[in-house]
């Protein structure tokens, strides 16, 4: 993975803490991982090595889970930090914007 997705993922995590009103810090470690310290948890997000399916590895309090995309990473991080979080699934409208 190139640096750009990692940098932007780091920025997204920092903005997400603010959006969820969770106090904490997000920074890049020397080895390039994204490290989040918040809500008495330490979360580490690494680019998964050369895995075409799972691009990320998320470690929460020592427990490792793969993630298929930055969207999945975001979900795992929020589930860890925001106990009241209940994901809403998108629903597609039956009516059209323009009549068929």
């Amino acid at each position, binding site marked *: 993975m190139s640096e*750009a997705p990692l940098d932007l993922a780091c920025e*997204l995590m920092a903005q997400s803490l603010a*959006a969820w009103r969770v106090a904490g810090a997000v920074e890049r470690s020397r080895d390039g991982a994204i490290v989040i310290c918040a809500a008495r948890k330490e979360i580490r997000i690494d680019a998964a090595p050369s895995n075409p399916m799972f691009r990320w590895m998320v470690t929460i309090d020592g427990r490792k889970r793969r993630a298929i995309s930055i969207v999945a990473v975001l979900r795992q991080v929020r589930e860890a930090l925001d106990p009241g979080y209940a*994901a809403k699934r998108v629903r597609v*409208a039956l009516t059209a914007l*323009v009549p068929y």
Partner: protein
Amino acid sequence: MRADVIPISILTGFLGSGKTTILGHLLRQSAFSRTAVIINEFGEVGLDHELVEASEDSFIELKTGCLCCKIRSDLAQTLQDMLQRRDDGKCPPFDRIVIETSGLADPAPILQTLMTDTTIGGRLVLGGVVATVDSVTGASTLQREDISQKQVAIADAIVLTKLDLNGPAQPALLRRLAELNAAAPVLSADRGKIHSQCLFSAGPYDPHAKSLDVNSWLAQERHSHARHDADIQAFTVVRNEPIAAVTLTLFLETLAEHCGADLLRLKGIVNVAESPDRPAVIHGVQHVFHAPAWLKRWPSDDRRSRIVFITRRVRERWVEALLEAIGAEVADASVAA
């Protein structure tokens, strides 16, 4: 296109803001004949329908109870019954429907019902959402009543009423309206009188042209930046470069997942990388999204993607960061493949 598809518009606004007065004037205009109206009142005994006089080509249904909570299925049933009676020739052959909500109703669930109910899907198309604001008491109402903010935020057009009592609208009120919903034109009603075409052409679908009127719907040039301490905010995300289809899909899914009810409304025109000559028009209310409508061509020389957000407690910078992060990952994966 089906010839009998009927636009349905919502007239909302806080208690006493002049909805019924405007509706009464509209229904006396010849251009607004052939209209079916559903008036929703909160109490057990409705009065507003007594105050509205309809022409022979129009008719009024009354629903009591709160339309946005307990009688959403009742709304769908009412609409289905009206359409059936129209098809059977048992009522005037209306060619538009207006729902006047109660002053305490949240218009978002009503919009969602219109977007998702299987019994009415295919027969109706969303017209505009119009919110009335009392120019005398509007500023204090917006400060005090969350539901009033939401009514304004979701609207496609805002109508200031009672200007005859108070003179021109106060700058503070106009500023607050712009903070809540800069995309919506602010119209004035003269003692309840307003031209119907100004009012209900503010939605995405133009029933006269029978097409999407994206430019006026988005009203891009009117947008200002949101006030950052505000609970409800309006802002626009603009992208000069095309957006990959998969990025757009993931972005919308993630917004729905994380924002839910706080994503009051989203509307936009998107330059999709795989379809450079045919932009996608997107629209969502909370977690419910229309399938994108693909325009035959760009409506102007401006080919930037422009997505208008009306949100509650959703930060603009988070939305920007989300789109950036997903876009970068999709680009990186494409290069790697």
